[in-house]
């Protein structure tokens, strides 16, 4: 913004020359006018900015979507009130030598304006120990959320991102992960009812906070 070139102004008005130190000094205003101007300017910028700011904070301010009753939840048949989800495999297919098997967990997910029914929400490592007990470990690393693989050569669990390693029972074997692998509650059932001899495997599938030493649900 260059200084004004008075010669380019056809009005040839002497007052339009804007050299700062002129004989006829423009009118000065009192502090009240300055303050008032600043206040109004602040308001007109502040109001839209404040509204925008609150809108941006929506994920923190809004109540988490609580699903209204009466919907057609298809996953309901394979999920109970306590949060146990029935897996698609039966105990019989798990190897007896304790080799872990990765199994997909299906559930309903609410995602903003959609409600996805019976879609994969994660996976668990299932393992049958020598005494026939079945345990489930969350397949996501408690360190920073990469996926933990079964390493056949070493007979352990291993995360390729930051080399976290765990024994097959989920105990951490190096100092990289902050805690052991997240074990999940398992329930063996028949027709949805607790039955140690049953073939159905139900797992209480949960996600936990990553990077901290305590196992806290997300």
């Amino acid at each position, binding site marked *: 913004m260059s200084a004004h070139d008075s010669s380019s102004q056809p009005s040839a008005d002497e007052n339009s020359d804007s050299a700062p130190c002129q004989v006829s000094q*423009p009118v000065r205003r009192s502090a009240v006018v300055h303050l008032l*101007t600043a206040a109004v300017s602040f308001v007109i910028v502040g109001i839209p900015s404040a*509204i925008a700011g*609150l809108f941006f904070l*929506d994920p923190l301010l809004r109540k988490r979507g609580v699903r209204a009753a009466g919907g*057609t939840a298809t996953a309901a048949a394979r999920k109970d009130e306590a949060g146990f989800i029935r897996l698609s495999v039966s105990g019989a297919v798990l190897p007896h030598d304790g080799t872990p098997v990765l199994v997909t967990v299906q559930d309903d997910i609410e995602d903003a304006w959609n*409600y996805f029914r019976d879609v994969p929400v994660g996976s668990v490592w299932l393992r049958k120990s020598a005494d026939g007990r079945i345990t489930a470990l969350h397949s996501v690393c408690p360190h920073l959320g990469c996926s933990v693989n079964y390493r056949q050569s070493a007979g352990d669990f291993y995360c390729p991102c930051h080399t976290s390693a765990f024994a097959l029972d989920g105990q951490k074997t190096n100092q990289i992960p902050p805690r052991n692998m997240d074990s999940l509650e398992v329930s063996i059932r028949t027709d949805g009812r607790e039955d140690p001899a049953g073939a159905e495997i139900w797992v209480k599938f949960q996600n936990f906070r990553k990077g901290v030493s305590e196992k806290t649900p997300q």
Partner: protein
Amino acid sequence: MNSFVNWLDHRTGFRQLLHEALYERVPGGARWRYVWGSTLVFTFVIQAISGLMLWTAYSPSTRTAWESVFYIQHEMYLGSVVRGIHHFAAQAMVELMAIHLVQVIIDGAYRAPREVNFWLGIILMQIVLGLSLTGYLLPWDQKGYYATQVTTNIMSATTVVGPQVQVLAQGGTSYGHLTLTRFFAMHAGILPALLIGFLALHICMFRRHGLTVHDPAYAPDTWFWPDQVLRDAIACLAVLAVVLLLAVFRGAELSAPADPATMFDAARPEWYFLFLFRFLKFHAVESLGLAVAAIIIPGILMGILTVMPLTASILGAAGHSLNKAFTWIMTIGIVGLTGLAMYEDATDTDHQAALAEAHRDAGRARELASGPDKIPVEGAASLLRQDPFTQGPRLFARHCSSCHRYQGHDGRGSLVTEFSDAAGKQTSAIVAPTAVDLSGFGSREWMRSVVVDYRGHFAWLKNAGWYQQAREKQAAGEAVSLIDPDNSEMADWSGDAAAVSSPENAENLTALVEFLAAEAGHGGIGIDQALAEKGRSVALNGTWAGGAAGTSCASCHSTLGNAFTPVSDDAADGYPTLAGYASAAWLRDFIRHPNAKRHYGSKNQMPEYSPQQLSDPELDLLVRWMTHDYAPTTVAEYADRLELIRAAIPTAPAPEPTSQPK
């Protein structure tokens, strides 16, 4: 603090910048008439802020655009306010731009040496119009979809390159995901970037040449800060207040999700383009062809606007007067055409009915999308496609309304009219219904009316041509088989004031009506089971007193009380079957086979609707609408037009007072 400010100033020189920005000399004193440019910059800032916020939640694809806007509008914190601000500030921007432009011309601010800045302003105007055009489509609702279709089709009328321009704008030969991604990139990226660039140039040019002083002697000179800034800020505050009030109390509209298969009769451009819309509707203009009317003529007008500085410099004072005259004529023309378009729409009952339906669909879409199942992955348009409440009236209007009415209208709120050439003058008159008005079908009122006022209930049939012909034949002594509301066993039984409708039968009648309503089983009717049980025995055994003693419904309608099954002609009793009368199962069968012996047999006049005419899914939607079998709604129904029909059609039955309190 002070030393920090000094350090910052030394490194950045911000004091100098600030001084230059604020201490612009304002010869002749601060004036309210100088505020328009600042309000435009301000509305642009509002648009940038609110637009970026909307961007955080908007998802441009045909399956998520409406859905994400719905989510912003109805679920997000202050979402409706942010969207409302963006919606109304956009309109304010167009308004303010028009005022700014007119003022620049009237005050002669476009003349030398400010020609280039005037042209920069013209470019800015095109960018703002482009923003408004691209923004209108983004919600992917019916309103934006159909209005923008018109625009891109006009583009295709451009000579030679038209089709290519259209494909480029749409991202393909038809609307789809890429139309939205392209429009969004234009709206939120390319056009704003251009706007910022040209705005910067515009302001630089403005500072170079200074204000166009209206009257240097008006007041002593002053500085831009604080005198003019105060006026500008107050004007901006006023703009903000209007935008906020509209955003909060009126809100931005979101019509039903875009559906290329669903007509949208209420399509109109944004109100500030109404003048162009109305201009294109003139017969003289239409006859010029789309390319001339929609592209060349507006192009010429824009051209005249663009060469104004040259006109003024070549023709001098006369040129300036010419430019001012052109501006006033254009302003008057635009205001006049806009007013004309609004007036015509306001007095056009068909347009009003279309608007009411658009409103109904929008409300219903919102209602369904807010349901516990949220929006299906295939998009919100499918919600309305599968909704009886939305589709039923449309199917009724298409298939049934040539004879039947619904609350006096065609199902969609429009009166059924026909043009007549009476005395060489074309007039439109309401057509008499030739079959029963089906609003209230299956309700208690309907059942009571059939039982106690059979003649009145079916009197609409007497408007039909077949009825009048049959009566003439009867008069000539021919034997004719017809449904006659006036002369039939049922009419005699129903019409006897001393029989069913007598006070001593009041209790039985109420019970019978309850039973019949329960048999119909329409949604939303709470049934008194004990009363309905009593009504069943009245219907089957006829425990009537007085003139109706010894009669029962079931003595003729032998299947009454059974669940509906389509019995064969051999098994029919010769009377219309009342098994599950008015229930969904009965209605489905009736619409397909009204001439079956179990229904009206040889007396039938209604066309049979085969699956070729009315597919199974359509039949299902229609029947579910008529039996109120859909998710409950609070959306307003179409306006009742029965009174209009009764006033216009003298042969229509007068509403008979029911002899029993309901």
